[in-house]
């Protein structure tokens, strides 16, 4: 908004002032979570509440992690999220390539059908998906989670990736074709490598979605050992209403993979969104 040439010190103060004020609102809840997770249990409800713990202990972590199959839940979540992300990337890249770079009868109509998927909120489909999964024997299994997660991500990720694929110059394709390369060669060796920011953005969105997903996993998984983390954490809190230290210790561990994925891919992230059709 302010051009570099006309920026005055008071502008800078205003900008930083607002950014830091906002940061306080973002940071306080997280700080409270972290500090509660390292407080001894008797200080969970200390009054006045303290953001900086007076005594630091890792007891909450050792207790939360050793209990209730936490490690298994973590692995369940990780497996489901990784497989979902990989499958989503493959399937939606294929779709996006067809919609972005190929001509075929019915292209427009099919694309609109797919976009419709972005307007349907996932939770609404839970009832019939539950009945169909029951029919296909997918209830209570991680495969059942993965197929639904992949499907619920298809519309948005295809839309996002199509924006990238369309922006790749046609001459590159022509060059490959002159060398005798077919569509698959172009897809694997030209289009995908050139769309890294798009794939990174899709990875972040899909991984976060499947790591975070609650409603479907809540309904589809009843077998204790197959639960994913969000379910496990919510149930744990429900059963141990005052054990906030342990709840937050588990939550922080559950946050680690998400932060790692985001840190790895965030460099591409804004660019990814800017280049895709996503911003409207």
């Amino acid at each position: 908004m302010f051009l570099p040439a006309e920026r005055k010190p008071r502008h800078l103060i205003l900008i930083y002032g607002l950014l830091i004020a906002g940061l306080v609102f973002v940071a306080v809840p997280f700080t409270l979570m972290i500090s509660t997770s390292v407080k001894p249990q008797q200080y969970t409800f200390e009054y006045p509440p303290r953001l900086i713990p007076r005594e630091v202990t890792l007891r909450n972590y050792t207790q939360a992690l050793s209990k209730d199959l936490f490690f298994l839940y973590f692995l369940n979540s990780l497996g489901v999220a990784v497989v979902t992300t990989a499958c989503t990337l493959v399937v939606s890249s294929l779709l996006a390539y067809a919609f972005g770079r190929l001509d075929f009868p019915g292209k427009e109509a099919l694309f609109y059908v797919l976009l419709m998927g972005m307007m349907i909120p996932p939770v609404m489909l839970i009832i019939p998906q539950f009945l169909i999964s029951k029919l296909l024997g997918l209830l209570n299994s991680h495969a059942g989670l993965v197929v639904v997660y992949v499907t619920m991500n298809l519309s948005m990720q295809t839309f996002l990736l199509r924006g990238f694929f369309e922006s790749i110059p046609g001459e590159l394709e022509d060059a490959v074709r002159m060398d005798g390369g077919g569509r698959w060669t172009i897809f694997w060796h030209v289009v995908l490598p050139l769309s890294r920011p798009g794939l990174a953005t899709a990875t972040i969105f899909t991984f976060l979605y499947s790591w975070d997903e609650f409603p479907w996993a809540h309904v589809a998984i009843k077998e204790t050992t197959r639960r994913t983390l969000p379910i496990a954490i919510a149930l744990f809190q429900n059963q141990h209403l005052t054990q906030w230290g342990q709840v937050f210790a588990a939550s922080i561990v559950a946050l680690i993979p998400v932060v790692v994925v985001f840190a790895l891919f965030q460099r591409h992230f804004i660019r990814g969104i800017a280049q895709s059709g996503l911003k409207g």
Partner: protein
Amino acid sequence: MAALTGEHTERAGQPSLPAQIRRARTAYLFLLPGFILFVVFVVYPMLYSLRISFYDWNIIKPAKSTWVGLDNYRTLLESPILHRAVLNTLVYATITVPGQMILALVVAILLDQNIRGKTFFRVAYYLPVITSWVIVTLIFEYLFNSQAGLINYLLRDVLHLVDEPIRWLADPILAMVPINLLGIWKGVGWSAVILLAALQEIPISLQEAAAVDGAGPWHRFRTITLPLLRPTLVYLLVVLVIGALNVYIPVLLMTDGGQPLDLTHSVLTLMVEETFDRLNFGGGAAISYLLMAFVFVISVVQIRLLRQRVEVQ
């Protein structure tokens, strides 16, 4: 026919009919895996759900379900619990959507400035977005707890606004406060990133040219930035309203599924409870269809209205 118009024949050595068919076949192969999933887990479920909504659905023996016509819908439309859930959900949308959009616009403009520490702020503001709904809901529950919650402490001992700690989650109206604040807090970063991406597409030369003509920052914001952001704002509005109408996790966890007295339900918590706790699949499907229809209508209306306004200008 298109081949005769000359447009296509100009493009190097294309479409003999067999070649066209071959190309279309390749295209359909690319589409196949995605569309199988999409049909089995989205399109078919939508139709299936519609059918269920007209039945008193028998979950054990579907064949024994009885057709009840519009009874499920009728019962729902008369149910005070659903009315309350709809009201709560609409309030949530009315508060959180503008809240997120306005704050996100401010944040995006700030992050678009060429300042030191940009990346740090960007990542920091995005943290609530990448944190799972379950976790942020629990954090807010703890922040607002009535024993030693930080919010109650601030209100009572720092600001002296209340004498007694407020029991936020025990009151159906007060419970909306943490739920709505959470909705805004969690969502701002996402909208800000989308807006930031759009801001960065606006060529700086436009701003510079206007500055040369003597337009100040505020004037430039109104005449250049805002109009160019309009498509993005429309997109955000539509997506955020859909998201808000589907609020689920924070309501479920904070209010323990509609407590007290089923007065704090959102439409979806009610739907899931009706379906999977009371095993009324027909009623649940009917709720989902009512919501889906509403979401569809409201999205179309928003897109229409906002498009028109752009054209008028």
